[in-house]
């Protein structure tokens, strides 16, 4: 029991725990649409593109969320508009622009002293260093983003499943797509402090991908995704405390572990279930064959 209670005697661990739970709920929800719409690459690009914003507000002594939100929103709008004019290959354009943004952030940071240490905490997150204000900001953002996502769930579902019908029913599909990108962007930005630029995508993609294996219904997938994300966050945090490992990376590895378990054990989509079904199929075929032989003889 002290394994669980002892770390929580430290205020920084209490804050980290709250942060990780809020982030888990948010990433679990929003991540479902990242996975279902195939936005993983765009999400990764977003995480890199906000880096100059993070660095600039860090250098200016402001909360890193401030600059990140501005860059994140601009990038989300940029991607939305880019994907509409199909003149440039979307993938390449995103690749080019975001590598450039990321490099810009590194260059700005390298002009400052204490470069290596700063770079480390910005790239890999600093969950143990979150302030009470950070937790509050995260909570407010999570409530807004979560509220919008759940409030427009039926519209987001329709545009994701059948965009043609959505447009013919008179829904503003482009605006909804843009809004979804903004929600993803906001999610990534507030989660940056937890696991950093490089690993954030794992938190947004891994739990919902695991949840998708468990169920064929969106509502169940969202609940499972939130549950797995929160579990990975909390478990990862405690493991990192006791094993003295980097918190963000440990959380990501825990989520990966959960995902692998789901890949193997999931009821209908898992490896075990599909191989069992295949074996059963073979048995049936075999039985059928022998019956026929009996009839013939």
């Amino acid at each position, binding site marked *: 029991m002290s394994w669980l209670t002892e770390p929580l005697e430290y205020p920084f661990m209490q804050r980290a725990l709250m942060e990780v739970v809020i982030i888990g709920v948010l990433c679990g929800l929003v991540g479902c649409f990242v996975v279902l719409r195939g936005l993983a690459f765009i999400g990764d690009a977003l995480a890199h593109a906000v880096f100059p914003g993070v660095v600039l507000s860090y250098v200016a002594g402001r909360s890193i969320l401030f600059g990140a939100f501005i860059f994140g929103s601009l990038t989300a709008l940029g991607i939305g508009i880019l994907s509409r004019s199909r003149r440039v290959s979307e993938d390449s354009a995103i690749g080019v622009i975001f590598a450039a943004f990321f490099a810009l952030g590194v260059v700005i940071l390298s002009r400052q002293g204490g470069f290596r240490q700063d770079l480390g905490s910005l790239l890999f997150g600093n969950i143990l260093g979150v302030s009470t204000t950070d937790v509050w900001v995260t909570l407010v953002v999570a409530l807004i983003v979560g509220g919008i996502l759940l409030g*427009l769930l039926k519209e987001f579902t329709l545009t994701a499943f059948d965009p043609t*019908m959505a447009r013919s029913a008179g829904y503003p599909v482009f605006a909804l797509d843009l809004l979804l990108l903004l929600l993803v962007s906001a999610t990534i930005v507030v989660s940056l402090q937890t696991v950093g630029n490089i690993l954030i995508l794992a938190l947004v993609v891994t739990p919902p991908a695991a949840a998708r294996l468990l169920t064929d219904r969106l509502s169940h997938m969202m609940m499972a995704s939130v549950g797995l994300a929160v579990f990975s966050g909390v478990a990862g945090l405690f493991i990192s405390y006791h094993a003295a490992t980097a918190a963000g990376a440990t959380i990501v590895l825990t989520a990966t572990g959960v995902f692998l378990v789901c890949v193997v054990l999931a009821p209908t989509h898992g490896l075990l279930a599909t191989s069992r079904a295949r074996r059963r199929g073979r048995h049936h075929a075999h039985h059928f064959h022998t019956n026929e032989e009996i009839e013939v003889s």
Partner: protein
Amino acid sequence: MVVGLIGPNGSGKSTLLKAIAGVHTPSAGSIRLGGKPIRESASHVAFVPQREEVNWDFPVTARDVVLMGRYRSVGWLRWPGREDRRRADEALARLGLEGMGDRHISQFSGGQQQRVFLARAMVQDPELVLLDEPFTGIDVKNREVFHGAIQDFARAGISVLIATHDLAEVQATMDMVMCLNRRMVAFGPTAETFTPGNLRTTFGGQVAVFEAAS
């Protein structure tokens, strides 16, 4: 009334349907339904897209898909209620999918999936139903249920516009036919319009017309 829309690939069948559905904006001219611009009556047009335009991996059941047809009348920030679910199940039953509402959409055969989409069009309470290539990969049994549903629409005074490659289907089951090849070649009652001459003009050399010897 059931209208068949025929023409070779690239003749603009799909484009015309999508313009009527409000998916594409016409570069010139205007589209009116019952005297009103089509944008204002968007919710009265039910569009059944081609198979490739739908995300089949999305975690939705057959009932969820049919309920999408109710979204517009339910309105923003609200959820379909019991009455909407009852109508969805009723529509599924009408299309021979009774009790299958909880199955994931990818677990149905191609023909059954088309029927789910037709059920969705049904609960939209449309004035006009647009079907884009609905007969692709459909077997005889599915085709019968399909025809029954289309006749239901026609009897209820709902117009059905079907873009298709299936000329035999058009000749056998549709009241009117529109021949399209980047412009309208002919339009009228099937008996008068479905003629060797019009087909040759529409399809050029791509169709062989065998005239009955009678």
